[in-house]
């Protein structure tokens, strides 16, 4: 009898361990549980002088940002279910015109790019790995934002005057902190519109990822959130190289809930969740 109980408990323990291992990535956490820290540290690098400044941004509870759309009648265009190229004829309409290519030139001459999006008049958000890479020497020698691009050429661009990243990212490229913001010298968001954001995300939310895969063409796909935890939003939206930094846009609440990072496995991709920390940083820079 004892033997049977012992064997059964062994089997139960093994099953429990297996289920814990398998379900690590699909924990659902409420937005309220996100963070209890009071300050968030950001390192801002002036790209003209190379000076770095550490900024402590106080965390406040309500830091969601509204979307500014100068032409609200066209919002319903968003909502296709398969990855598709955005027609060039609508590139002057929000939100398409608020996306752009973030083009970096590194000290050794290497060139890379990702996707960025306006979240304020002159504020652009992207992924940290788009604008900071330890392998390539840290910060790039130049960051240029090309808004409203839809292939094949880049057109007019705006130089970033500074870039701000989490200190945690600079200290070891922890994927949880894969977000960055930078400012340009022109208030192009006033005419193009800019995205709002929300720290509220849950499974089955309909989300769209719109970014720049090869050839600077703007592509989008809309599907569902399949998992959420305090740091990431997981979704089955199709994405490819060049879309890092793209907004993960909740098509119902019409707010950005994550910043696209890349592929996780064959069933889902992931983005860094706009949690309280990131929401406060976005608020700080929009209101700066």
């Amino acid at each position, binding site marked *: 009898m004892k033997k049977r109980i012992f064997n059964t408990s062994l089997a139960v323990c093994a099953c429990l361990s297996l289920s814990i*291992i398998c379900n690590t990535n699909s924990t659902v956490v409420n937005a309220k549980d996100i963070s209890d820290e009071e300050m968030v540290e950001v390192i801002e690098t002036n790209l003209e002088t190379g000076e770095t400044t550490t900024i402590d941004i106080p965390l406040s509870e309500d830091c969601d940002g509204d979307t500014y759309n100068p032409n609200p009648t066209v919002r319903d265009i968003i909502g296709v279910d398969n990855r598709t190229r955005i027609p060039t004829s609508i590139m002057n309409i929000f939100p398409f015109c608020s996306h752009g290519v973030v083009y970096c030139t590194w000290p050794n001459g290497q060139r890379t790019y990702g996707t960025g999006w306006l979240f304020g008049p002159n504020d652009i958000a992207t992924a940290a790995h788009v604008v900071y890479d330890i392998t390539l020497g840290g910060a790039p020698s130049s960051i240029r934002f090309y808004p409203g691009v839809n292939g094949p050429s880049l057109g007019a661009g705006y130089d970033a005057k500074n870039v701000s990243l989490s200190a945690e990212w600079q200290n070891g490229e922890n994927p949880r902190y894969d977000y960055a913001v930078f400012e340009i010298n022109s208030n192009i968001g006033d005419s193009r519109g800019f995205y709002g954001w929300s720290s509220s995300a849950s499974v089955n939310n309909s989300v769209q990822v719109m970014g720049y895969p090869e050839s600077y063409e703007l592509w989008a796909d809309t599907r569902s959130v399949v998992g959420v935890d305090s740091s990431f939003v997981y979704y089955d939206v199709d994405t490819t190289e060049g879309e890092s930094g793209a907004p993960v846009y909740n098509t119902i609440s019409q707010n950005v809930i994550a910043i696209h990072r*890349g592929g996780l496995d064959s069933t889902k991709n992931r983005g860094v969740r706009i949690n309280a920390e990131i929401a406060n940083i976005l608020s700080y820079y929009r209101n700066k």
Partner: protein
Amino acid sequence: MLKRNNKLMKGGSLNSFHKDILKLGMFFCVIFLLFFIIHTKLQKSIELQVLEVHDTYLILQDPKYSTDYMVELVGKKSTDFNVGDLVIVTYDGTVAERSPGTLGGVTKIKPLKK
């Protein structure tokens, strides 16, 4: 404690005690094996062609989809590779989708042919 010592002194009880220890050991072995299998399963390998060789990284291309990747040199020197070489890269399955893309958790870059 006294009871336990008494049990240990008797042959049958000693066997049972050892059996329990053995089962516990087996349990930990099973858990270790599970972790090992899952870890190995998460590792992925991809065959890529060398496009550019730099001091600390390679630019590689997936010939099937013409997608470029930047891979940090792990356990190898830049002199071990030439443009056009085929390599098998073992990584943790994650991709950061900058262009060129970055493969996450690269553990091995194995040249296929020179």
